[in-house]
């Protein structure tokens, strides 16, 4: 990947970060373009290899499918993982398991940036407080706009360094790895998306018997070879029944 491609990828990485306002805010940036699957499409456009990027993006997406970022807690850095693992995976022609392993590694290591970034953000926040106290209200209003430069520095620079200089390092590493290491990486990477699913199941399962719905989806796909849309139709059918039962129970309570 050349310098321009690395710059564009790092810029897109910053623009789709959770705290960046300039792509229309979190709904369009973080929650839409910033999802690994969607980002992969744009990374693929930049690197001129959309199918490969989407193939890898899909697996990176699956690990982070249950990612919820509650206020104040430090969560895996999906943004950096996406914008490092997918581009490097495309240019070094990784398989999905290796790319998943790289994404997971980046997302955990990158957490060390979270606290310094928060600390640095306090600088513009305190400037805003001071400006309000001094009555400089127009200036205070504009602080969130320029203050976001802190987030820019903590996104653009690490992404660029990893992508631009990391590609040759990772490429050499992948080329020189012995067969046993690659095999272990494959065994490790292939089921890793189950961790993402477990996070999601933890959120969605209210009582243990709800596991039956997971099993239904699993069986439809595994035993009957159903595609996603078919499973969705079955799921909606079950959901409607569940909803009606819930309403009926609520209605009884009101009546009694």
């Amino acid at each position, binding site marked *: 990947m050349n310098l321009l491609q690395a710059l564009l990828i790092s810029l897109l990485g910053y623009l789709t970060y*959770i705290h960046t*306002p300039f792509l229309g805010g*979190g*709904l369009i940036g973080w*929650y839409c373009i910033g*999802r690994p*699957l969607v980002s992969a499409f744009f990374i693929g456009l930049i690197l001129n290899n959309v*199918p490969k990027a*989407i193939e890898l993006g899909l697996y990176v997406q*699956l690990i982070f*499918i*249950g990612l919820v970022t509650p*206020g*104040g807690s430090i969560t*895996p850095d999906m943004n950096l993982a996406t914008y490092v693992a997918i581009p490097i995976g495309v240019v070094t022609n990784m398989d999905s398991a290796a790319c998943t392993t790289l994404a*997971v590694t980046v997302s955990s290591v990158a957490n060390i940036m979270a606290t310094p970034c928060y600390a640095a*953000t306090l600088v513009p*926040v305190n400037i*805003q407080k001071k400006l*309000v106290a001094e009555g400089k*209200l127009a200036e*205070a*209003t504009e*602080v*969130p*706009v320029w*203050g*976001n430069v802190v987030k820019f520095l903590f996104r653009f620079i690490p992404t660029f360094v990893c992508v631009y200089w990391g590609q040759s390092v990772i490429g050499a590493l992948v080329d020189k790895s012995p067969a046993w290491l690659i095999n*272990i*990486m494959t*065994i490790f990477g292939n*089921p*890793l*998306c*189950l*961790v993402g*699913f*477990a*996070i*999601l*199941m*933890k959120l*969605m*399962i209210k009582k243990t018997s*709800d596991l039956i*719905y*997971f099993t239904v*989806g*699993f069986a*439809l796909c*595994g035993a009957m070879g159903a*595609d*996603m*849309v078919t499973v*969705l139709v*079955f*799921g909606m059918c079950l*959901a409607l029944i*569940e909803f009606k039962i819930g*309403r009926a129970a609520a209605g009884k309570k009101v009546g009694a």
Partner: protein
Amino acid sequence: MTEAKVANKPEVKTKLTKAMIRKCYINWMMYNLALYQPETMQAPALVRMFGLIREDLYPGDPAKQQELMARHLPFFNTEPFLGCIIPGITLGMEAQKAAGEDVDPEMIVAIKSALMGPFAGVGDALLPGTLIPILLAIACGLSQNGSVAGVFFYIIVFLGIMIPVTWLLFNKGCQMGAEAAEKLMGSDIKDDIINALNVVGLCVVGCVACAYARIQIGFTYVKDGVTLVDLNALLNGVWPHLVVYLAALGTYFLMAKKNWSATKVILLYLVIAIVGYFTGILAA
């Protein structure tokens, strides 16, 4: 019914205009996390929102404008998108106060603080916890083999749902004030909707887990060049992808019941991969 309600209510004075609502909505949606940090969290974005309309609320009165912005400097945090109803409510109350209605500024802060917790919980559970994973799971199904179909599906459906919903919530907040939040949080229909959505979500996650997670058992017993036992084929003969299913349940059990962190589970996976490879139980 709405007409009767309006007729019963004395006319409430407000300085709110459509243009102001639009400006505040756009700026809240963009800047809610721009200066996010653990101390005041999303408060800097509220300060900006009111800073932008300070002249509309208190024309030529810098002291009142300063008071307005200072009031929103302290801590604020919620799920910013479904929770955008709270900045909406706050805006509605500030606009009434600016028009001379008797609105206690402490009340504005109190309502804001009372609502942010519940909306953070429900918002996180509904948006990144339910809607987004369901749509993404479908998108992943559509994008198999590197197709762009899933990508466009996700962009169009997600924004097609969320932009109107957030705009509606923000507007309802402005017009109905705290009453809107009460209606939303108080009705039990939202629990039934969340339950139903979770059923769809679980089915979809089950399908995706089966389609994408791969575990290959390597153990075979070969005698005189004839494979007598191929454990992988045997287990898949019992139920297709049985090992993946058990691994999914095991991972869920460790994380949900034993409260293991994702990192701990990932390290366990690594250990199992290394041991599994060298003992020949697992194959690439």
